[in-house]
């Protein structure tokens, strides 16, 4: 499943807007063992970045204690029309991106 993004389609200049993201990921901790005693290797998302018209406005580091399908919600100020770009990076070369547009009046 692709990532879920919720960015308001429209906002007034100066509005504080909420951005929500959810991406499907197993977030395997690396601490669990299979029934025959083998360690299940760690497989997590390690970082998340959000850029607003190219400028980074939010970044998060993720750790094994974070549950599957990480959901992140944060706020920013609507300054100008344009694009939000989202990027998730993780173990085993994992990378996923998404984007959403906003019209600021």
């Amino acid at each position, binding site marked *: 499943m692709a990532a879920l*993004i*919720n960015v308001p389609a429209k906002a007034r200049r100066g509005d504080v807007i909420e951005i929500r993201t959810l991406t*499907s990921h197993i977030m395997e901790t690396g601490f669990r063992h299979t029934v025959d005693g083998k360690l299940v290797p760690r497989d997590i998302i390690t970082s998340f970045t959000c850029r607003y018209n190219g400028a980074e406005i939010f970044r998060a580091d993720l750790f094994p204690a974070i549950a599957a*399908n990480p959901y992140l919600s944060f706020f920013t100020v609507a300054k100008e029309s344009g694009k939000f770009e989202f990027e998730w990076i993780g173990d085993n070369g994992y990378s996923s991106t998404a984007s959403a547009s906003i019209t600021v009046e």
Partner: protein
Amino acid sequence: MNAPVTRRNAVLGITAAATSFAVPSILRAQSAGRIVVVGGGFGGAACARALKRAQAGLQVMLIEPNKTFTSCPFSNEVIAGLREIEAQQFGYDRLAAEGITVAAQAATAVDAQKRSVTAADGATFAYDRLVLSPGIDFHFEALPGYDDAASEKMPHAWKAGAQTLLLRRQLQAMADGGTVAIAIPANPSRCPPAPYERASLIAHYLKTNKPRSKVLILDAKDNFSQQRLFEKAWKELYGDTIERVALSQGGRVTSVDPATRTIITEFGNYTPDVANVIPPQRAGRIAEIAGVADHTGWCPIDPVTFESKLVKNIHVIGDACLGGGIPKSASAASGQGKACAAAIVALLAGRAPETPRLTGVCYNTVAPGYGFLLAGNYQPKGDIFAEVEGGATSPVDAPRELRAREATEAERWFQIITADTFG
């Protein structure tokens, strides 16, 4: 039969109790004892009855505002037009005939110091032990936009009766090709598998009457009880009629707008033709008034006696209590009511209550003649009830004959539990 308890009698009762404290404890232990039970559902009615049957000398009063009880189990069939509401309704005449004083009142206040309950008309009833079986109330603050007025447009149908019939009428009025959305809250909630049974039976109604229509489940959970059984049945019986958006797909409903019949989730808006919104829940209001509900909105109890951990001499049973591993269901409430009655009888006699072992059984009917079940056994473990061995779930792969047999068993279960409680 006991004389009806009036305000005057109740005052006399308090006086009598005050006097009895002066006599030696051994005599007091033998005195009759006054038990007030608030709430006449599967838990409260079973408890009142078990108390009176265990000890005829007990004064047992049942406070319940509705003169007729409407059962939630099997009410999904009413919604789907497979059953009439009258088949869900039961009175309290037989309880009254057994010597239980039934007050058709809402309990509005509890004075734990004086040990008395106040009813809506101002009457007060004294107790030695109070049993609260108030079921659930809705936690409207947790779902902005939703309240009693909104439930007239977007019915919850999570308390059986007028709401059940409203949802049924909305389904009947919907044009073919419409979408019926069911918003499901996170646990704990009343009867966790019931929303999925409802989705199934609505799909059955649509398939039979409006085959181009859909059921859309917006779910605040990723996993649910008997999920594999439900999903297999959906595929088998309803193809792609039922679509489910789980928590991790953005299914959690965060608010509603009744004016436009819009359901708002974390990642999208939906405007279905029929919106069945089941709001988050908590213990019935009287639990909070009595001070037995904690920050979770539910009531922590001693699992052996069901006595509240917060207020002495008040016991909480049924959906309202924090039952640990026991799902909130009619069958659990009934078992808790009986176990609580046995514990109260023991406590009044100065004996140590026995450790209860409860059985909860939960039938789901996903189409006429297609049912399955989950049965569990529960025992106190530390502070809560824990599931112990001996439980069973219907196999995921089973011939239709078994599904048919379990659907018949479900009906039989309903007859038995309602006869046991009200008949």
